[in-house]
């Protein structure tokens, strides 16, 4: 039962990762790609982390998985912001305000 739930979560997470990559390849603009990537990957990782936490044996492992997810979420949000600022200051995206 738990295994089934974990499998569903991990499968959905993988789908979101694939969606993120498709967005990276197909969207027309750096900012659209950034949007697709950080959001889809963030959600994909959260679902996969949840699935892995369900499968994990010990509370220590669950704690570490939660920590990893928290760090990756904040780091990828911050780095997404930094990349966006960099792209903006390089004059990408047509320079719209």
């Amino acid at each position, binding site marked *: 039962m738990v295994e089934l739930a974990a499998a569903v979560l991990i499968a959905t997470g993988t789908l979101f990762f694939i969606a993120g990559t498709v967005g990276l390849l197909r969207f027309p603009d750096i900012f659209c790609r950034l949007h697709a990537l950080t959001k889809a990957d963030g959600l994909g990782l959260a679902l996969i982390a949840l699935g892995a936490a369900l499968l994990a044996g010990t509370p220590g492992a669950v704690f570490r998985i939660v920590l990893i997810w928290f760090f990756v979420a904040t*780091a990828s949000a911050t780095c997404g912001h930094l990349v966006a600022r960099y792209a903006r200051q390089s004059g990408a995206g047509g320079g719209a305000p």
Partner: protein
Amino acid sequence: MTDPLMIFDLLLALAIVALAVASLSVRDLFSMIVLFIIFGLLSALAWVRLSAPDVALAEAAIGTGVTGALLLKTLHHLRYVSGTLGQQTALGVTPVAPVPMGIILANAGFCGLITLGLLVAFLGAPATGPGFDALVAEAMPQSGVEHPVTGVLLNFRAYDTLMEVVVLLAAVIAVWQIERGLSDAPAPVMGEVWQGFARLALPAIVVVGTYLLWVGAEAPGGAFQGGAVLAAVGLLLLLTRAYIPQPAHRGVARGAFVLGTAAFALVAILVAGGGRVAFEYPLEHAKTLILLIEGVVTLSIAVTLAALFHGREPVALSEGGRHDT
């Protein structure tokens, strides 16, 4: 039905080779560095698949993180020196004379011979041999730790590890001889999002590095991995110019560089007394000694790697020689 994990391994191996070829043949230097960093990332995954998490940790932290930042800094410096900093030029940062075809062919032949030799050695080796697993497992109770890799690194083959630390020390001595100078470049504007994140993350990274050092006694981890993660904190501080190396801090830096080697060698020599040889830790103190050595070496490695990234001795030069970062 083939094991799908085998397909994963095959894909990974192909991807690594393809990335290596790509990073050598791409025209733009920046793409080359990005591809090389990703190559390191996939190599670390390969180590994981080979059931070597210690090596994967070291490869991820040092081979990918520190080396990637180092390459980027080198590219930045090259562009600064050649005055093309504001442009996105391709490979032509400094014109390089083309290599004569004869040399290319000789290199290719040489590499081919080595590959052939490796193949012969690999195929001719016995498929299953005793290996060292049994020997190490037998000797582990006398090493003072539970993790075989740490036991081998810090106890059974401690001379090798001491020499590795000496190599790092020699590297930083050489780098400080070659390049010196200060810089008055302005700090990059990182923004408030970064400030908030850094306040949260940098202490957390220090905790992770210390955890990696501590857990090395029972699980994959240890001095090099912990030191590399702590060096990553140093790198972040240097990159965002939250810390700018000052000439006044050189004494402390030099002390930190030498501390690891000195402590390691001192412990080795001091245990040799009363009928023991160097590095023969007395059994009841083995764990304490190993942890002590690892702690000091971690600190030393962190400061040394950060100094190697910064790349020069912070000395006020009398004439010219201002740097860009």
